[in-house]
């Protein structure tokens, strides 16, 4: 079980963030804090607003109310590319790779961002790249191949490798395990572990409960855009409101542990 790391300053703070689409409130006064080196789980039934939150944090959507802060700095009004240059990096539910470029080019996009961020260690990327590829189970891959030759799981992992090459401060993972088999999930665990060891604040959206319960330090649960509860995995698992949200009343939330 991971240790809960209590840093003094949160890396990412959401404060009363609201997002409406027409009549629907996709995010309803959502607040939480992310600390470096921890994994913060974001779970909830489908349609509860999880991906909307990632879109709000990265700036693809702009918040109607509330604030998002990176360190002490307000990023609520900044554009997506500016936020990524500050270190807010994400992966996507369905991998968004550059389909007409080879694997190496895809990876280099991550390195380019590190260079743009003026990080001193950015230029010597080879070693980091090799470590990441190995951690992701991609070390046998021919870098000059098209990304289409990778399996779905490999493509998802390549996205995380790309993200990690830019030395994120906050890593937002949108259902990284979806579509992966059990052995591929080990690579996800390894990558998440590498991120937390580097002090990165990781936000994990997931449906695979065993993964969530295993790697998360804290979890918040969303339903219809509202936070039902926030706390340790063990607390959340027993929370009746959470169980009802998932199962619509009755039954136990049985985590495969």
């Amino acid at each position, binding site marked *: 079980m991971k240790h809960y790391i209590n840093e003094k300053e949160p890396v990412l703070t959401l404060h009363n963030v609201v997002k409406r689409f027409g009549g629907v409130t996709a995010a309803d006064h959502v607040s939480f804090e992310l600390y470096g080196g921890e994994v913060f789980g974001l779970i909830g039934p489908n349609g509860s607003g999880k991906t909307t939150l990632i879109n709000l944090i*990265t700036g693809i959507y702009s918040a109607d109310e509330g604030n998002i802060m990176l360190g002490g700095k307000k990023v609520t009004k900044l554009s997506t590319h500016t936020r*990524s240059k500050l270190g807010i990096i994400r992966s996507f539910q369905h991998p968004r790779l*550059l*389909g*007409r470029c080879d694997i190496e080019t895809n990876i280099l*996009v991550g390195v380019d961002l590190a260079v743009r961020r003026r990080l001193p260690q950015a230029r010597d990327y080879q070693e980091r790249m090799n470590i990441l590829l190995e951690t992701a189970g991609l070390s046998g891959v*021919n870098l*000059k191949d098209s990304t289409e030759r990778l399996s779905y799981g490999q493509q998802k992992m390549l996205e995380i490798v790309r993200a990690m090459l830019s030395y994120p401060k906050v890593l937002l993972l949108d259902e990284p395990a979806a579509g992966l088999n059990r052995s591929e999930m080990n690579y996800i665990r390894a990558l998440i572990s590498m991120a937390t060891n580097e002090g990165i604040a990781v936000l994990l959206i997931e449906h695979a409960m065993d993964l969530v319960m295993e790697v998360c330090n804290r979890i918040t649960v969303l339903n219809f855009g509202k936070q039902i509860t926030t706390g340790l995995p063990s607390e959340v698992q027993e929370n009746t409101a959470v169980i009802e949200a998932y199962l619509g009343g009755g039954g136990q939330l049985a985590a495969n542990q």
Partner: protein
Amino acid sequence: MKNKKKSSIIVLLTALAVFALAPLGMGNYMLRVLNVALITYLCVLSVYVLLGMCGQNSFAQAGLWGVGAYMAANLVLRAGFPPVIALFAATAGTALFAFVLGFAFFRLRQYYFTFASVGLMTILNGLFMNWEPVTGGALGMQNIPKFSVFGIMLESEKANFYFILIICVLTFVVMRILFYSSIGRSFMAIRDNEIAANCMGVNSLLTKSIAFGISGALCGIAGALYAFLSGYLSYQTFTYQQSTMYLIMIMLGGTISPVGAIIGTMIISLLQEFVRPLANYMQLIYGAGIMILMVVQPEGILGGGKALYETLHKRKRTGPDAA
């Protein structure tokens, strides 16, 4: 892989050899055709950068070509600058023009930019046709001197050929450098997945404007070279139809590489000369040909070649799941 760089160099050297030896067998008329083809190649290359690399479709390239041409002509004829300065200034001026316009146009979503480019082309052509003090209006501009540098004037078609060829080779090399650079990757990221690009630090508006600016630079060079080569400019050269020809040329050759630009340009430019008896039907053949090409091989000749290569050398699949 070493192979790709190696084959690039082999292609380049072969093409160079062919081109360098070409004038030996040709009369002035064919050389002029070849010179104009090379200048056209530079404009098609501008489409490569904007569309092939960055995914943005513009119909204004012939207009930018005209901007470069009229700029160079005016600088030499009316302001008395030496051709070398005019060449650089026309290049930089057209690049800046496109770059600044980019900031206005690229706020719009992809399709709208294409429409705006049609608008720009129309406006530019209208200006070329009517703005007498600058472009000579419907009569155009005449008596533009041939290019000269360090006191040497390029009088003959052959001399111009080598000069233009050198410039084309240099731009080709620059394109390769661009492809392997981080700005080049930013172009391709926008082309393939703009949202992912934004999430990885790529500023859409700025990057697209830079692409437009580079395309403007290429058209600017082409325009200046054309002004010096041909000696006179007319609005009838810089038309929307010409812009569509550029698109057809690069689709024919393959948008994936500057080599595609060469192939497409050469085939179409030279085809016209070699099928004189069919001249009346040429446009019809192009039209039907391009329709067939899009069905059979939308990636153009290069795409077809690549597909052929890959079926002949069946590559091993990576990873455990070979789908």
